[in-house]
């Protein structure tokens, strides 16, 4: 177990290093000039001399490898640099936005569980009957609606027509409801289908027939045996969804003016705000690797065979 964690930490460092090199090179190759972003903040005339001075001050005239080296050296000293646009520390900017992203992630996961687990189970239990058709129709609609459209429909219905919920912003739990539903519903179809097929597969296994022969109640077989077996592939996808959610959902955050990491990095990309983008990519890398570690750990909880193999040192 400890060895596994140690190897994952080494992997994390390697992944982050590769990510930082790739992002650095891609950003430099992309069109756009951060110096103009900085100097045009006041919408005024900017001379070539002004541009050259700022380029020199920021070290943007140095060779690429030297720029990268300087940035990496600062990162090793736990300094992610400052935003080119508003001069704020990148770490502070991200930490300002992270709580909102974590809230939205949690909200979306709750909606996802509340929607996908019952629908997936019911679809499998009543295979070929109307609950199954209904669940599949829901999954089809959910998979076809883009998040920005669903978000707008929800705002129109619950904020404008019914006036029950706020249209945007953050503050209390009511602000979280519409963005969470938007994200949760859009992700749910994939999980409903996975759960349905996983449970159906499990229900055809011999251990389920044996359980039935022992007279165990059907709902118990479904909830304790079949659902559990079906959760293994779901956890793999969940790991990816979780890291994606933690990295921030650009569309949903922008639509609801939710102050998370997604909307922050969108603005940074438009403004060619290199230090913010680099810091964000590093943080996202940490999320992805951590989510993968958590998924691996969840396999041990869900599948006794994995525990047993590891226990025997296989």
């Amino acid at each position, binding site marked *: 177990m400890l060895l596994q964690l140690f190897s994952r930490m080494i992997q994390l460092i390697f992944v982050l290093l590769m990510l930082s090199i790739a992002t650095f090179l891609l950003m430099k190759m992309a*069109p*756009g*000039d951060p110096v*103009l972003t*900085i*100097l*045009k*903040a*006041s*919408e*005024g*005339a*900017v*001379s*070539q001399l002004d*541009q050259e*001075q*700022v380029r020199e001050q920021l070290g943007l005239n140095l060779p690429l490898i030297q720029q990268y080296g300087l940035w990496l050296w600062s990162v090793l000293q736990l300094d992610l640099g400052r935003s080119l646009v*508003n*001069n*704020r520390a990148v770490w502070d*900017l991200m930490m*300002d*936005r992270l*709580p909102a992203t*974590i809230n939205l*992630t*949690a*909200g979306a*996961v*709750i909606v996802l*569980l509340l929607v996908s687990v019952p629908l997936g189970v019911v679809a499998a239990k009543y295979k070929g009957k109307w609950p199954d058709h209904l669940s599949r129709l829901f999954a089809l609609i959910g998979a076809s609606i883009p998040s920005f459209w669903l*978000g*707008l429909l929800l*705002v129109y219905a619950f*904020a*404008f027509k019914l*006036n*029950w*919920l*706020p*249209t*945007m912003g*953050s*503050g*209390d*739990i009511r*602000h*979280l409801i519409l963005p969470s539903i938007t994200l949760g519903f859009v992700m749910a179809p994939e999980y409903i289908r996975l759960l349905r097929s996983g449970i159906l597969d499990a229900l055809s296994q011999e251990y389920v027939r044996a359980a039935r022969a022992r007279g165990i109640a059907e709902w118990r077989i479904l909830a*304790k045996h079949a659902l559990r077996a079906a959760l293994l592939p779901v956890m793999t996808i969940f790991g990816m969804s979780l890291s994606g959610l933690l990295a921030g959902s650009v569309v949903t955050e922008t*639509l*609801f*003016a939710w*102050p998370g990491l997604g909307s*922050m990095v969108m*603005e940074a990309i438009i403004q060619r705000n290199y230090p913010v983008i680099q810091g964000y990519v590093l943080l996202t890398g940490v999320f992805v690797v951590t989510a993968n570690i958590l998924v691996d750990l*969840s396999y041990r*909880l*869900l599948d*006794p065979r994995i525990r047993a193999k590891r226990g025997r040192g296989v």
Partner: protein
Amino acid sequence: MSLWIRSKRSTVFLGFILMLCLSIVLFGCTQDKVGNTSSGSPSETNNSSSSASKHVTIIHSLPNDTLDPHNTWIALRAGITETLLRLDENMEITPWLASDWEAKDERTWIFTIREGIKFQDGSLLNAEAVKASFERGITDSKALDAALKIDSIEASGQKLQITTREPYPAFPTELVHPTTSIISVAAEDSMGKVAFNSAPVGTGPFMVTSFTSGSEIRLTRFDDYWDGKPKLNEATFKFNADANVRTLAYQSKQADIVFHLSPEMLVSIDADSELDVNSVTSLRTHYFTYNPASSKVSDIHVRQALDKLIDRDAIVQDIMLGHASPANGPFNASLSFGNKEGYQKVDEAGALQLLENAGYSKDSDGKLQKDGKPLTLKLIAFTGVNPELPLIPQVVQSEAAKAGITIEIVSVEYPEVYIADHTDWDISTTSYLTSPRGDGGSFLNSAYVPGGSYNPANIEVKELKPILKELNETGDTEKRNQLTQQAVTMINKAMPHSYIINPNILVGLNNRVTGWKPGPEEFYILTHTLDVK
């Protein structure tokens, strides 16, 4: 027994995920509430006006990560800070925190700071405080340093003397810009920079009570405001980049003032008698830039012909739904230095005559050609923040096709970068705020001088040089306006650009709001006169 244990583990695992999610949500929301007085929910916003506490909710389209007054515009827009000089409703420069100013010589300016003004931390505004504010600004903002070109500042009592690094007659125009806001540096010293940039201290009518990065600012009135007690008690300034949601928030009365509504959504607002929409002339101009290195559009006849093929009326009516005005120069015609002559109407016959003079003739397919080569032009289009920008080239493309000109539209993300790196283009869509400070000098110097920041194509109008030289040496506003108009006439003659429209700013204004009208500069949004019924 083992079956029971396994079942229990599974239940515990699922329960753990749910509990974790719930606790994060509840914890997060509790955290968010700290420092917030209310949530800005529908009912609270609507009821607030009827109670003793007057409250207004404003939504703007540009999100902010900081309230740093020297790096963003938001502190001035939200009524937290003020500048030495300001623009009046005619876009002319008038005194504000400075009661008076004069030029000692072409590099030296003397400002008299108004007496009896207090910062929101209770300290008095004097020349020393203004000096400290400018010094902080040019240290923390490279853009401000480049714009102000300050060499030295001297302060004595209420007199402030600023010397610039080079002759700079347009210096006062720079001092109306939001990033020249005057702040209490003493307050920043005691609060620390990070805390200060989340709750800056200025002389404005409103003080920050809480700020959520990228989402909203909550403000309360400053009772000791120098220009009269603010009418409102509290205000919420929100940001949302999505025009549809901003409009729905306005329609659901969750916001009283909403900036940048989409023209196509106005029909649904018209039905509500409580909601008004103000269509305000903006300081932005959409225009075409012609490539001086192109073998086709370097011919003035071709540029003039293309100018005649731009159907400005159709663009105003069909794309902007009437919320724009046709442009006849880089600056809005309603400004004191704007071009007062009429705009070019679509004139296909005139355009064809010009092209004939340039040696073009129609082939059997009705296409214009010269020396056997068809007149095919490459037009660079970009989206930018204005949804109408990519539509304008399409209108021109169809009008040009009728005349026998083929226009190929290529969409790029950054036209400035494309232009700087490529020569294979003929026309480019361009859009700038051409007079954000109530003066045209800054734009003329950056768009018509090679190397200027708004001149990636390195356009040079030689005849313009002496006028610009004189303009850059002139401080008198009237004379500057005359010179700017002369420059515009010269530019229209040389036609390096075709000016298309000045788009309007659409601002939703609930009928309960009084004492405030949106201005074209979008600087003064939350003011001490803004009130609600």
